[in-house]
């Protein structure tokens, strides 16, 4: 146990996800050794993220205004919506530079064992976005795990009668991997989603 402020800092850091008591202690002493200017920059960043960041009223992504920069961009393709679980998934897809449409962030996946059902996610907010008739495709990009697949199943069933094309991101072999190391489920999905090669 350290005295006063140092122990308080260790305790607070220790509450962060993935930070244990040892890591918290290491970060606290690292901060103690830094210049005041560096520490103040961190303090400002923490204060501002709480004060300025909110969720986009259209897609639920993190934003600094009422709309995030993707929803506010008129050059984005308004005919397709990519449904993701978390804002960090938006960043991952944006890195590919393959998708030029808009997003819809659910805020998680359906997980009854954690008490999370469809009503606890931003599923209801998706429906008015499809009502205008402009959207032609909804791409479901939830995680390829049990909860993500079940959420995709729920959404595809919900959107069946809306009149939009519902697609799911392909699952299969990772680029750069060896076939012999692929597990049965992944390899099975790769076979399921195989496509014709046009030479």
């Amino acid at each position, binding site marked *: 146990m350290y005295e006063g402020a140092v122990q308080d800092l260790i305790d607070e850091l220790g509450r962060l996800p993935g930070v244990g008591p040892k890591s918290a202690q290491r970060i606290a002493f690292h901060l103690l050794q830094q210049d005041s200017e560096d520490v103040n920059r961190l303090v400002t960043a923490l204060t501002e993220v709480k004060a300025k960041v909110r969720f986009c009223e259209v897609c639920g992504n993190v934003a600094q205004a009422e709309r995030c920069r993707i929803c506010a961009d008129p050059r984005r393709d308004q005919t397709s919506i990519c449904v993701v679980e978390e804002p960090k998934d938006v960043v991952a897809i944006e890195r590919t530079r393959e998708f030029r449409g808009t997003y819809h962030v659910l805020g998680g996946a359906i997980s009854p064992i954690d008490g999370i059902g469809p009503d606890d996610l931003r599923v209801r907010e998706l429906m008015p976005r499809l009502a205008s008739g402009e959207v032609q495709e909804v791409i479901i990009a939830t995680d390829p*795990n049990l909860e993500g697949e*079940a959420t995709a199943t729920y959404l595809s069933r919900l959107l069946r009668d809306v009149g939009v094309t519902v697609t799911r991101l392909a699952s299969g072999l990772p680029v750069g991997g060896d076939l012999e190391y692929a*597990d049965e489920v992944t390899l099975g999905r790769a076979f399921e989603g195989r496509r014709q090669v046009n030479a």
Partner: protein
Amino acid sequence: MPLYRDEAIVLRTHKLGEADRIITMLTRTRGRVRAVAKGVRRTKSRFGSRLEPGMVIDVQCYEGRNLDTVTQVETLAPYGDAIARDYAAYTCATSMLETALQLTEEHEPQTQQYLLLAGALRSLAEHSHDPGLVLDAYLLRSLAVAGWAPSFVDCARCGATGPHRAFNVQAGGAVCSICRPPGSSAPAPETFALLASLLAGDWEVADASDDRFRRQGNGLVSAFLQWHIERGLRSLRLVERA
């Protein structure tokens, strides 16, 4: 460190650190076990998809002080994958997995619970019966294995030969007119017959039952389960029934 190998059903997973998961599984011979699976959240993980809830696996772990560590996994039955494609089956499966978590103890062998859960998951994955009926049958039988077998014919208090008209959760099932405590419900005779068939595994009777009696039976099973395990099941309110 001692290595061990066992068959297991993955009950639940929790994220750990950057790319790891804590896997809670019900093993065939060692009861409930918690183990760390390193790097399984990465897309290049060799056994990430094998450690999803509902999967039946052949697992090798080494024992740790608090948590074991998964070293090898082979799939025995990928029920989780098939179940996730049917939303009603998925909600029923999560309730089964949560019930198994509540009814089993760490490192206490419970082979009967293991076999029961594996059978129920197979039934859901193969769409053999209505998912709601499979869930109710699993709940009744897992409670019976745990020592809380309900009675749907003879009186649960005095043993008087049935059938009887009243049902009381606290008393343990059907009760005769003499033993009937205040506040007992009076389900339809068809509901009693349905519940008895689910407990006995008589699927011909269960599959032919009417929706009205299934709904009534499901309410009684839920109440019976939550009374005995002394807590609410979070997943039960989200179960989707036909």
